[in-house]
């Protein structure tokens, strides 16, 4: 471990050289900045990971079944488990995905599930990311650099090898490929996660393509290669639904693939993750995920949600308003740590304002108990300090659903902050899963 700490500077310098960056919005301005790496890994013992593995697979399987049901028979709605107000009113629900099943019936091929560990050692799911969860490349490259700096650290500990991510990704793409090459589609090098796009293309053997490299003809997608037009069978797209196809979504999008939805609905290409997944990962639908596990799988959820209240229900609204000063309130339409308010940080006046907003638009918010999560040690200017941290686990669904034995551990750089999102300026660590 001392070896790794000694190499903190070297590793961060190399990360910078590789262009491992993240974009953040601050005061309305977009700035790219480095994603600081902390050398002390999060260590997850084998027995603990086995529980996570089971719970995460269960959760992602239920979410995939929910999406298939939602865009198909809608049984969970007619059975009264999920109200229409949470499934169909949000912008994540896309009618153009109705009456159509994507290749192999898979919607969320790559799921990023955010968890925190409580002080008592139990894990809570904070958020499901089923659209384009990013971050797998950061622990991947960091592990590579750490291995190079301190090979002994990896010989002395029984750490599960995480270098199979590229192979897992290839398997996921091949599984749904409708005939043709695999492509990772990026909005381009100005995107905050461009490093990740290019790195994952390298590791998975997929072609990295930008707008203009792909075109649609007669509802088939082609890649313009030096050899001529090559048929594309699977697109791991790293742009959001609304920019994906100007013939179907935002007509002004210049970074999409015009006509791709026609090819998709014809069954000529797989889109990873499926468009329309936003209907299953907003902060409102989150409340219902444990119910989905029971409904679709007939099992008790292995992983728990953070205690959550939906002001949409009268009882929860009353509780929320009465306890606003100790809850955390989240705007369901926002992501990346935006729109998150801790009641205890607000003045009386601001609290009243928030209460008014919740009363006016109860569907727009969720309230959660603040979880007292476990601090992890980080090196701050050569001294060990404690910081809040979460874990983004990556769950990949190909022929089977598998959890990648690693993950992205993000930590807050401010001593008192609970917000760890990289878009809010956090740092990251490697995540070691032990083999015994």
């Amino acid at each position, binding site marked *: 471990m001392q070896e790794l700490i000694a190499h903190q500077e070297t590793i961060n310098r190399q990360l910078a050289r590789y262009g491992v960056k993240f974009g953040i919005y601050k005061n309305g301005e977009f700035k790219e900045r480095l994603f600081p790496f902390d050398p002390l890994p999060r260590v997850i013992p084998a027995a603990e990971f086995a529980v996570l593995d089971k719970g995460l697979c269960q959760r992602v399987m239920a979410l995939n079944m929910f999406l298939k049901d939602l865009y198909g028979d*809608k049984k969970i*709605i007619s059975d009264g488990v999920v109200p*229409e*107000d949470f*499934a*169909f*009113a949000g912008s994540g*629900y*896309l*009618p*153009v*995905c*109705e*009456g*159509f099943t994507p290749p192999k019936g898979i919607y969320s091929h790559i799921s990023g599930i955010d968890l925190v560990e409580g002080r008592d050692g139990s894990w809570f799911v904070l958020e499901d990311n089923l659209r384009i969860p990013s971050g797998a490349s950061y622990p991947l490259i960091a592990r590579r650099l750490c291995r190079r700096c301190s090979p002994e650290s990896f010989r002395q500990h029984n750490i599960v090898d995480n270098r199979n991510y590229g192979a897992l990704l290839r398997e996921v793409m091949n599984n749904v490929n409708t005939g043709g090459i695999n492509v990772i589609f990026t909005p381009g090098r100005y995107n905050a996660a461009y490093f990740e796009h290019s790195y994952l293309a390298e590791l998975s053997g997929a072609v990295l393509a930008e707008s203009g490299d792909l*075109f*649609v*003809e*007669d*509802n088939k997608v082609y890649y313009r290669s030096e050899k001529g037009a090559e048929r594309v069978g699977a697109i791991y797209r790293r742009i959001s639904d609304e920019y994906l196809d*100007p*013939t*179907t979504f935002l*007509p002004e999008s210049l970074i999409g693939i*015009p*006509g791709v*939805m*026609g*090819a998709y*609905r*014809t069954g000529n290409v797989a889109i990873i993750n499926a468009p329309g997944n936003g209907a299953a990962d907003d902060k409102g639908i989150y409340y219902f995920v444990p119910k989905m596990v029971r409904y679709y799988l007939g099992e008790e959820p292995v992983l728990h949600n953070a205690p959550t209240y939906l002001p949409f229900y009268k009882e929860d609204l009353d509780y929320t308003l009465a306890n606003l000063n100790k809850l955390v309130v989240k705007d369901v339409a926002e992501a990346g740590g935006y729109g998150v308010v801790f009641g205890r940080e607000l003045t009386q006046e601001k609290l009243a304002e928030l209460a008014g907003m919740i009363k006016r638009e109860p569907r727009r918010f969720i309230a959660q108990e603040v979880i007292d999560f476990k601090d992890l040690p980080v090196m701050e200017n050569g001294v060990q300090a404690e910081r809040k941290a979460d874990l983004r686990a990556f769950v990949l669904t190909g022929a089977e659903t598998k959890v990648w034995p690693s993950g992205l551990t993000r930590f807050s750089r401010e001593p008192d902050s609970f917000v760890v999102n990289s878009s809010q300026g956090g740092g990251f660590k490697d995540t070691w899963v032990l083999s015994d």
Partner: protein
Amino acid sequence: MKRLRFAFITTVQYSQPVHGHQLALRCVPLNDAGQHLETYTVKIMPGRLPAPQNDGFGNTVFWCSIGSEHNVLRYGSRGIARVEEPGQPAPPPNPCLRFAGFRTKPGKILTQVSSAMARGKTLAALDALCHAVHSLLRYQPGATGIYTTAEEALAGGRGVCQDYAHVFIALARLAGWHARYCMGLTVGEGATHAWAEIYYEGAWHGFDPTRDCRTDASYLRFATGRDAADCPVEQGTFYGLADQTQTVFMRVKEI
């Protein structure tokens, strides 16, 4: 029931050649509960017409590709449709039709207007709403654009059929109805028309707030959705710096 002979042809002229054209077309009447297409032809020039697809609302969509350079684009359909009077039994609506679309999201004004209106789950209440919307807006082409929202149209007090339909739909949904936007043709209009339908007791009932009346068998639906954003006749992109001039020829006649 009416038998309607229809023709709908759009011609787009480009000031310079364009290429790499991708477009989604909704240019054929629907074939569903209450409306049956007896015979029809559909064409696009230049290019080839692909197999028809469905956009999730049950609308017929052609996702077309025209790679080669062209100065003119022409598409449309003609044929004979049998249209029933509104109120025919129809399958349950997509639940999303109870919630706002992109251009029908209520703001302050719609919410205010809605709260001042009488509620009632009856067709008579909807007739009253239709009449109210008709009097809230003044018909004025050019005052609004295709991206104008219901809230903006109501704030300006002016608009065209799309805006009337949007305001009606937004208010109907605030009152708890499943409402859908209809784009299509009707007798006596020189362009595509827009109106609204409400799902009531197992059937769709049509309201035309522009004309302040119920719809009848002379209204031919081409597409339905949450609002106009779900029902464009044409949406797409091309390469080229060209100005476009669009002319629409349409005719609907009872036979």
